[in-house]
């Protein structure tokens, strides 16, 4: 490894591709550190959306005219791009949804509704975002299944020792995030999948915080479902992906009924379309799919390894730099452990909301709150945290500005 030159990012030219980054906020150049909530979009994505609506706009899979053909081709080509990105065996396993949340709701309602029985167990973790928790609560209430959860250790890592105790012959599915949106912990998905499968359970991976930052190869990860959102990889909002193993998707009942998802409809009953259309009722977000594929192509051209190397370096630099800020604690894994460049911050005597307001006055955008992970906040014993999250376009200078502004916040409250 040491002899291989690491691909590097040309940050200046990369940043120029993101129009939203080229602005001042409150008189200072914007420092956007909320990419875990939503990433900024490169020009290529904005142009793909515009080109679709200006030239190819038509409904898909229906019309017999030129524009409908182009729209359908673009929509299905985008699916192939996603399948390649995920290393999915087939594009037919790639289902378009609104986002990670809808993908998980789809699996919980469709697979869960058809397969869970009273007393069955769903295994989640205390790290999960509400979107990988509440859909399971809903289906558990409906079916009588029971939710159990894996705890974390004091550095925010999943307690794999507990996993073995919690995985029993009653466990039907393990729902786990690829990476924590609040702490940045990268979960050992392959290991979890192996153990879950050995216990006879399926594995769903919430990839909302994984797809943009980590290698995603659903076959190598060994999972059964993988969900992610377009807007967190620099694509448009309102489009996302559910990947599932074909035999599972084939056996699952539809999630929503309507046009597009049927084969033959009679007044009393219908038969369903082939995969993936069985799960795509109604007019889909065609432009969104095209934009998401443009985002994936964009990162291909930039180089995913270079992005990952840069984000790794950022994480190490930030953890080091932030250690110098008086009274500041970074929750979660330290720099020697598997983590993304997402930092949950606790500053002595300063509430996260006040941190966010003070940083905003300096043009720095962070998130303050529970990060849709209330059980995790309770587990950590904090009502909320201030979260700074990076992406490929984040610079080392921006981390410096974050640290300086945090020091200033500490002084205001000293």
């Amino acid at each position: 490894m040491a002899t291989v030159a690491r691909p590097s990012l040309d940050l200046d030219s990369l940043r120029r591709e993101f129009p939203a980054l080229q602005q001042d906020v409150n008189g200072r150049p914007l420092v956007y550190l909320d990419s875990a909530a939503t990433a900024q979009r490169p020009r290529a994505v904005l142009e793909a959306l515009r080109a679709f609506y200006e030239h190819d706009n038509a409904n898909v899979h229906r019309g017999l005219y030129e524009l409908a053909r182009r729209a359908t081709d673009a929509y299905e080509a985008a699916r192939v791009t996603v399948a390649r990105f995920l290393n999915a065996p087939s594009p037919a396993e790639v289902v378009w949804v609104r986002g990670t949340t809808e993908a998980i709701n789809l699996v919980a309602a469709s697979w869960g509704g058809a397969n869970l029985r009273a007393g069955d167990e769903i295994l989640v973790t205390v790290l999960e975002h509400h979107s990988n928790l509440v859909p399971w609560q809903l289906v558990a209430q409906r079916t009588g299944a029971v939710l159990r959860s894996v705890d974390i250790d004091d550095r925010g890592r999943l307690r794999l020792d507990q996993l073995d105790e919690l995985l029993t012959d009653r466990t039907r599915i393990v729902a786990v995030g690829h990476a924590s949106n609040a702490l940045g912990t990268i979960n050992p998905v392959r290991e979890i999948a192996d153990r879950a499968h050995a216990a006879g359970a399926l594995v769903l991976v919430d990839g909302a915080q994984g797809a943009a930052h980590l290698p995603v190869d659903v076959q190598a990860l060994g999972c059964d479902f993988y969900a992610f959102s377009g807007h967190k990889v620099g694509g448009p909002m309102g489009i996302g992906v559910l990947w599932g193993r074909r035999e599972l998707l084939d056996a699952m009942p539809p999630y929503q009924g309507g046009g597009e998802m049927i084969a033959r409809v009679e007044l009393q009953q219908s038969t369903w379309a082939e995969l993936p259309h069985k799960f795509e009722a109604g007019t889909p977000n065609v432009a969104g799919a095209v934009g998401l594929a443009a985002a994936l192509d964009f990162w291909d051209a930039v180089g995913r390894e270079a992005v990952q190397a840069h984000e790794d370096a950022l994480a190490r630099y930030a953890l080091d730099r932030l250690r110098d800020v008086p009274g500041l604690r970074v929750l979660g894994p330290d720099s020697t452990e598997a983590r993304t460049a997402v930092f949950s911050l606790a500053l002595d005597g300063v509430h996260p909301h006040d941190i966010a307001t003070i940083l905003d006055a300096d043009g720095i955008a962070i998130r303050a709150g529970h990060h849709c992970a209330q059980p995790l906040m309770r587990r950590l014993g904090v009502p909320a945290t201030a979260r700074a999250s990076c992406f490929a376009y984040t610079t080392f200078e921006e981390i410096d500005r974050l640290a300086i502004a945090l020091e200033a916040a500490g002084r205001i409250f000293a």
Partner: protein
Amino acid sequence: MTGNQPTPQLAALYQELILDHYKRPRRQGQIEDPDVDIHMMNTSCGDEVRLQLRVVDDVVRDARFQGTGCSISQASLSMMADLLVGKTRADALALTRRFKEMMHGDTDAARDRRLGDLRALAGVAAYPVRVKCAMLGWNALEEGLRKLAEEKGV
């Protein structure tokens, strides 16, 4: 804020008086067998407050609160609880209205002496997302007084 110096707007938000109430909150605690006991949560941020009042002959005799929150929500609660003692229910509701007006940028309300120390929070109006922090305690007060009126049938 440019480097080290807070902007005037930020300095107006984080005045000494507000920071003082945040760090040394007045009237934090509990009342035994209170006439008003209300729990309220700001769902967007997780801040919570429990507000308790002793109301005798229509006058607030004691006000106490517990909870977690940012400087703005805690300072607002601390100042509010201080101001409420000795006020009638009608006074308390009038103050609530006046405080809301100040949060909506009403400059007359921001100079209204009846609001006392709370006028220091006038700068919050420049930060619309923080107004709900300042309102947390007042929303609890309003809800608590409404329930009290229901219970007493007045």
